[in-house]
């Protein structure tokens, strides 16, 4: 059984329908890339899974349990952590407090705690008492990922973690992925940067205008097929 399934998931912002019957299955241990152009519905998909956008209960099934439409706080406590687009660190909190708050409501029984997050992202410990927003963009992104890891999630959702960062910094951040997967965490990466996403994923979904236009293992998909699924005709 898949760790998380979306079944004919639709999502709306008021009258505007952003997702049309999305069906996906993430197996435990998978690293899934969800790619697509701006406005394809990638972020909406993640927001629906983590409870920020409402949907019908059985549209999202986590570990056999319908969780669609639960409150975001409840979903987090079940073991789904989100690294939101734009990092969204808490400016009033220090770097360390930003990490700690990730573990306040769920610690899980896993590997990730302050020490291991500092090991994963070595630059952070020296800045632990700094205001989170005083850090460089890359380090802020590391804090955002660390904050999500602190709850030892079973499913980690990463929304545009390379957005606005220099290529060399993006490389540093993606270098953390093997260590995260090594703990058995299922990772869903939403990216506009296709190359980066395909390099780490073992499964890819391409979205276009709220619908899945392509899915499969990265090795099986041709450049042309991805290009067409991404941009349409």
């Amino acid at each position, binding site marked *: 059984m898949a760790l998380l399934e979306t079944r004919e998931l639709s999502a709306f912002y008021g009258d505007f329908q952003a997702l049309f019957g999305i069906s996906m299955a993430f197996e435990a241990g998978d690293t899934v890339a969800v790619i697509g152009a701006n406005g394809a519905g990638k972020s909406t998909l993640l927001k629906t899974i*983590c*409870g*920020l956008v409402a949907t019908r209960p059985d549209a999202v099934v986590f570990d056999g349990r319908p969780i669609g439409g639960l*409150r*975001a*706080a409840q979903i*987090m*406590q079940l073991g789904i*952590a*989100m690294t*939101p687009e734009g990092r*969204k660190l*808490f*400016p*009033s*909190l220090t770097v360390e*407090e930003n990490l*700690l*708050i*990730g573990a*306040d*409501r*769920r610690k899980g029984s896993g590997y990730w705690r302050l020490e291991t997050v500092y090991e994963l992202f070595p630059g952070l410990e020296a800045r632990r008492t700094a205001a989170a*927003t005083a850090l460089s963009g890359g380090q802020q992104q590391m804090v955002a990922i660390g*904050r999500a890891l602190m*709850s030892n999630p079973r499913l980690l959702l990463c929304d545009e973690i390379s957005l606005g960062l220099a290529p060399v910094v993006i490389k540093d951040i993606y270098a953390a992925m093997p260590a995260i997967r090594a703990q058995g965490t299922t990772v869903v990466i939403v990216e506009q940067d296709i190359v980066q996403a395909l390099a780490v994923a073992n499964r890819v979904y391409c979205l276009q205008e709220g619908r899945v236009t392509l899915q499969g293992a990265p090795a099986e998909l041709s450049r042309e097929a991805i290009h067409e699924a991404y941009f349409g005709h």
Partner: protein
Amino acid sequence: MASGIDIVLQGVLLGGLYGLFAAGLSLIFGVMRLVNLAHGDLIVLAAFAILALVNGLGWPLPLAVVVAAAAMFVVGYVLQYVVLNRTLGRDILPPLLLTFGLSIFIQNGLLEAFTADSRRLSAGDLETASIALGGGLAVGVVPLLTFATAVAVIVALNQIFYRTAMGRAFRAVSDDPVTAQLMGIDNRRLFALAMGIAMVVATIAALFLGIRANFDPSIGPARLIFAFEAVIIGGLGSLWGTLAGGIVLGVAQTVGASISPEWQLLAGHLAFLAVLLVRPRGFFPRAID
């Protein structure tokens, strides 16, 4: 000269009371951007609660204050969880309307239950006790206790805010309520907790309000004005700033009163306007907002 120092000293101590009025208001605005127009009436409600326990059940004052504080915590928690949480959102009008209605409701409820008579809390000999400072100066024990309590309350609130996981959650929700939910924080419960704590502070304020002067069901809105002015002078989001704002207000009032009794309240409001002119965001606004 001595009388000048005396006036300022009394004003500073009076500022402690205004700081207590304002601390609860500052706390809930800081956490959930809620402007509680019933804050003054909730303080008066707490004063009547203490009064009822002392006069009605014959309890000693300290016990009555502790029990009233616990009861007001529950009142605040339930009020926020059941009612006020529903009004929070992008539109700031619904909570204003609701707390305005609550203010009228509390005033009239108290009028029914306790009549319009002026009441006060009795602290025995403490009320008239004073400490001589030499040079013809003396301070009352009650004003001194009020000020010391205000400082203690703000120290305690700062400890909660900056040293506990609950305080971390308060600051996070204040920064970004949506992302806070992604941390597993249930905003509704956290807001209710903040209102509960604010009502405990309101009960402490009520104690000193009731010992210092008479109160009746109608005086809430005036306390609210003082509390608002203290919060704005101090700068939104800073608890120490709120105490400083209370002190500015208290000193302005006692200086005004020394010129002419009619000037007491007006001088306070003028000081408030003067601060707004010079520092529109108050003295210690929170850096990030």
